[in-house]
Every structure is written in C-alpha cells, then in structure tokens.
C-alpha cells in the first residue's frame, strides 16, 4: 500500500500570532455560554433507555414464575471480572424434578460487574438479562452483592423460549403412561 504523506498547511501570519485564533475560540465559547444547557437534570429528568441497553444483569422467571436458570455456571465462567458466583443446587420439588438443577444461590457482585453483557450472551436458558436498571447502589459493600432473591426481584418475568418445564414434562408423563411415542 502506498504511503501518502500529508503535509500540514503552513500557518498564515495571522494564525502565527495566535491572537486571532484565540479570539475566534473565545467567540465560540462565548456563544456556547449563551445557549441553553444540553444536559438533563438527572434525578428529576430520567434519560430514555435505548433498546439493547446494558443495565444491571438480572435473573428472570418464566411466565409461570419458575426459575429459568439451571446453574450451568457458564456466566460465572465467562464473566471477565469474576463478578458472578453460583452455588448449584438440585430441584427437590417432585413436580419439576425433571429440570433437575437450579441455583441454590446466585451471587452477583455489582462492585465488580462491568456491564459487558457476556453473561446474557452466553446463557443457554436466557435466564440472565441485562435490563434497564442503571443506578444500582447501596450503603454497604454487602448490600451491593446481589443474591438470588434480589436478582429475581429485579428481573421479573420474561417469556420462555425453551419450554423445558412443560414440553419435557408432558413427554415424560406420556412415556410414563405407557406406549412408546
């Protein structure tokens, strides 16, 4: 690839005195001073959250209020600042035991989280979602380490695309009542 050498235009005499450029600069700032401010007054005025915004990662439940997370720990593995810590556990409720696994605890250290969204991207169950919460704070370090309950509370409910709860259950029941297929 050819290298093209660009030479800076030599300064004119007026420019070299600095005075005129400085004056024009002063004019620009002065004009800005007269204009109305462009900022939002945050706590009263809230910014509009764009689509795909990466806020605080939260855990979501399916419309039937069942945990989507199966504690596969992929988010824990992929998390660059190691903000996630999952204690895996088994589902004891016999009705849903076919899903087998759910987190006993899901610890999300918001002091560490960098909002990269890799956890959301890696999640095979679409259980962790970065929603629109952008101001997460607390008075103690312990409080800002979010646990399972808090995360589900923040996350709410999202539609389930996996049907692991119902479709599997139906099939299992059919199989149990005899008959292959």
């Amino acid at each position, binding site marked *: 690839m050819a290298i093209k050498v660009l030479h800076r235009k030599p300064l004119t005499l007026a420019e070299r005195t600095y005075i005129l450029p400085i004056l024009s600069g002063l004019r620009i700032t002065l004009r800005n001073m007269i204009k109305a401010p462009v900022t939002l007054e945050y706590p009263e005025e809230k910014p509009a959250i764009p689509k795909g915004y990466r806020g605080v990662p939260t855990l979501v439940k399916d419309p039937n209020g069942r945990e989507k997370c199966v504690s*596969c*720990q992929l988010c*824990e*593995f992929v998390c660059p600042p190691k903000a996630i810590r999952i204690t895996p*556990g088994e589902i004891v409720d016999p009705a849903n035991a076919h899903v*087998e696994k759910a987190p006993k605890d899901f610890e999300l250290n918001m002091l560490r989280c960098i909002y990269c969204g890799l956890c959301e991207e890696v999640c095979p169950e679409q259980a962790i979602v970065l929603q629109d919460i952008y101001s997460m704070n607390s008075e103690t370090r312990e409080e800002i380490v979010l646990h399972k309950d808090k995360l589900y509370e923040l996350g709410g409910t999202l539609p389930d695309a996996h049907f692991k709860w119902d479709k599997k259950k139906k*099939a299992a029941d059919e*199989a149990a009542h005899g008959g*292959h*297929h």
Partner: protein
Amino acid sequence: MAESADKLISVFVDGIEVKVSPGTNMIEAAHKAGVEVPHYCYHSHLSVAGNCRMCLVEMGTPGVDRNTRQPILGPDGKQVIQWMPKPTIACATNATPGLHIRTTSKIVKDCREGIMEFLLVNHPLDCPICDQAGECHLQEYATDYGRGYSRYVEDKNVKPKRTMIGPRVILDNERCILCGRCVRFCKEIAKDEVLGFTERGSHSTIACFPGKTLDNNYSLNVVDLCPVGALTSTDFRFKMRVWFLKETPSICTESSTGVNTTVWSREGVIYRITPRRNDAVNDTWMSDSGRVLYKQVAAENRSTAYAIEGRPVQAAEAVAALADTLSKAKGVAFLASGKSSVEEMYLLKKLVAAVPAGTKAVHLVPHVDKGDDFLISADRNPNTRGALLTGLVKGLESAKCESLLPMVQEGSIDTLVSLNECAGVCGLGREELKKLQYVYLGTHYCETSQYANIEVPLLTVFEKDGSFVNQQFRLQKFSQAVPGPEGVMSDRAFIFATLAKLGGKGPRNASAEAVWESMAADIPQFAGISFASIPAEGRPIDGSAFASQPFAEGKNLHFSA
C-alpha cells in the same frame, strides 16, 4: 510395553509413517502418529466392542497380485495401495505391515458426521444441567466432527432420568449412547456383572440385572469411563462444573498400592478425586473408598490449631515448646506414621538423632487390613517402605510398638511424641499418658489426643507436597492441591523448625528440594534423585535390601502382574 525393534511394523497414518508392534489396533497406531481418532466405546484397558462406530476410518493395504503373490507396482515404482471401498472401525482393526490409514478423507468426515447425527437424535442436549459438560466426548466430537445443526424435527425419546443403579452412581438413560464401556468394566475389571442392555431399538438402554445393584468398591470407575453424562457420581453431582476445577496430581493414601490420582479443586475446596493413568500401578482405576478421602480435609475432628496444655498458641510457640520438651526429656519414644511422606520421615529421623535424651525409641505403627487383591493392599500405610528407606526404623518387626507400654510403665520413657498415630493403638491409656510428656502431632484428633501436653495440627496429603514409596518400591510424588488451615505450618516445616531449634543437623531448609538434596547424599538408594526429577508416573527404587522384611502384602499386588 516391551517392543523389540525388529518386530515392529510400519503403518502410515495420513501419510505419516509410524512403527508399531504387530497387533496394535489402528486407534493406538494413529495416536502414536499424533492423529486422534474419535471413539466412544473403545477404551485402552477394556476389551474391544466396536459398537459406537465413531472411529470409522479408511484403510488400505499394499497391493499384492493374488496369483503371483507379487507386489503390484504403480507407475512410480512404488507399491500401489489398495483402499477398501468401505470404512472400517479403527478400534477393532489391527495394524498389518504397510497398512495405510486415512482419517481426514471425505468418507471419514461424512461417516463421523452421520454417526454424530444419529447419536444426537435422541440425546436430550441438556448440557447446561449435565455434569459431564466440559469433559464430555459427545460435546467435543459434536463441535469437532458434528454437523452443527439438527435436521431432526420429531419429538425426542423420553427415558427415565435419575435412576439409582448403585449407592454412588446415578444413571440418566436419555444421555446414554450405548457404548457399553460400563458393562465391560463390570464384567472384565470389577468382575461383578451387574449391568447390561435391555429393550430394543431407540428404546435400548442400560439397566442393572434384576435384584442387583452396582455397589462394588470400584463402581465409580464407570462414571469416569462413561464418555457422556449418562453415569454420574452422587457425590459430585451438581456440585461444580469441571471447567472451574484445578487438577493436581496426587497419590491415594488408602493403602500401600499408591494409586495415582488427580485432585480436582477450586479456590481451596476439593470437589472430587479421580484416578490418574499409570499402567505400572493402577491402570486407570481407583477404588470408591479412595475417592472420598478428600472429605478428611474438612472433617469435624480436624485439628487446626496449635495448643500447649489446651491453650491455643502460635506455631512458633509450639515449635519452641516441643524443642524444649525434647531437650529436657530423659527417655523419648516416637510413634512414627506410615502416612508421613518420605521427606517428613527423613526429617523425623534427623530430629530423633538431635534429641539429647538417653533412651530413644522409634516405632512405626502397622495398619494391616484385608486386601482386595486389586487396588487395596493389606498394608494400609501408604509409605511403609519410605520409613525403611530413610532409615527411620531399622526393621518392621522391631518397630512394632508392643514394647512401648512396659517401657512407659517402668519409667524409662518420660516423653512420647506421636505423629499421626493415636497412642491408644499401642495400648497406652489415660493413666500412662498422664505420666508422660505427651506430644500429639496429627491431622485429626483421636481418642487420646485430649491428653496431649502439646497439640500440633498437621496437613493432609492434599495440603502438602512430598513423596511416597509404594509396595513396589516405586517412588511417587504428590503435589499440594489446596492450602492448609490458616496459620498451620507444613509438616516438613514444623519438624525442620524443631530440628533447627534443637540445633540438630539437617537440610539447608525445609523445601522438598533441599530435603531431597540431603537425602540423595545420605541414602544410597536415593542417590542422584532430586524432587523435581521424580517423574509423574513414579520411579522404581532398589528395595532389595529390605527383601527379608515381613511386609503385610505378602505378594506384589499389582493386579496385572
């Protein structure tokens, strides 16, 4: 494997020539050439079944004219390779001279893709839940050789999940790919036929024979064998994903067999122990009872704090107190343990030499139980040979501690130092111990440790490094997998510090390297060995000097010997 060079034959894997002994199957030959042939049912230590079909490769032989028995030569003057029209399974085909193998051709690729598709037809794909995820061959081969998408639109089969086929093993029938490794293991290795196939077609599945469960002491090996997540361990199930775990090579302390193990830990917590392949010791197997030994790390009676007369102290104070006790003693008895590492035994020997007392006795407490003629030997001390090699005890018979009780009773012994051994095994009770200055060093409390004047916590095999000499006089080393309890010195460091306090001679410092420098100079059998130079699979030591010792094993227990 003894291979004399003249018997070797040439095999060509993707054009790479390798020399293998006749009878080697194509998977091993390819492995030798650095080419991996994917396989599920084949296992190097089990018989060949050939039912997974994953290892299909193309093979060809040098052309020979049937009539003239003359080689068919091509235009370039070389023998023409006659390729078989169909692929063959690499596991069940043995190498012949001049055999050619293709592992990357279109046919092979198509075969693998097809096999993968069939295997995945009824596979539940519940990797997020499955414990095998991360070390699952199905996952690996699906990414390496699979199609990448599914054409199967029908409902998948539903089979039972969570079937308890034994107290320690759970079967998930949906995930099973019917490779039969577990069936063959039970039949061939464990000699306890429990498992078999049942049902037909896509409903074919593994099951226990009626009235039987998989409850032998080697049942967990089927979990290791299972290439997918069908067989899982109750103990490890849902505890931790394997990709988080750190692997540390270690040695099983269950018996003098010295089974090679891998300790899997994360952030100072051990999650499981699996066998490590060492064909000279344990092949790829280990006992179920050895796998739960990690639980002693966090056991309830674990000793974690130094104490003098029941008062908690820092390590340095305990060192000083022990040195003080030893220097004042008139007669000292040491209860050494066959669970200590070679290095610790050596340092202990130095410590014994440095004690100024008039009467000194060293006892090695034998722990003998019934062996199972497989991987658990009768001598349950992992390092009895180490005590002999380091010279800590002169002979096994003389080291038995029956003589201890009379010596205590007559008063010629006023100080007792027991290391990982309970004084009770030598018949000493409360009255005797009360008379003595009793120093108890141990990983765990025992029934007599409460009478100790000085209590010293020791580290388990998972928390320190060192080496053992097993029943075959094989020197094997283990590494530290997890840190010990806070504030606890390593066993070596503690003995070394006491030795230094007493002014005795010893290695330049307490590191394994330094101790080995000293041992290599002192002990003829160890000459030329450094800690770093002990290979992963161990190193045989000349044990002929101890041939006359009454070892508990009776015979060399390597199961294949």
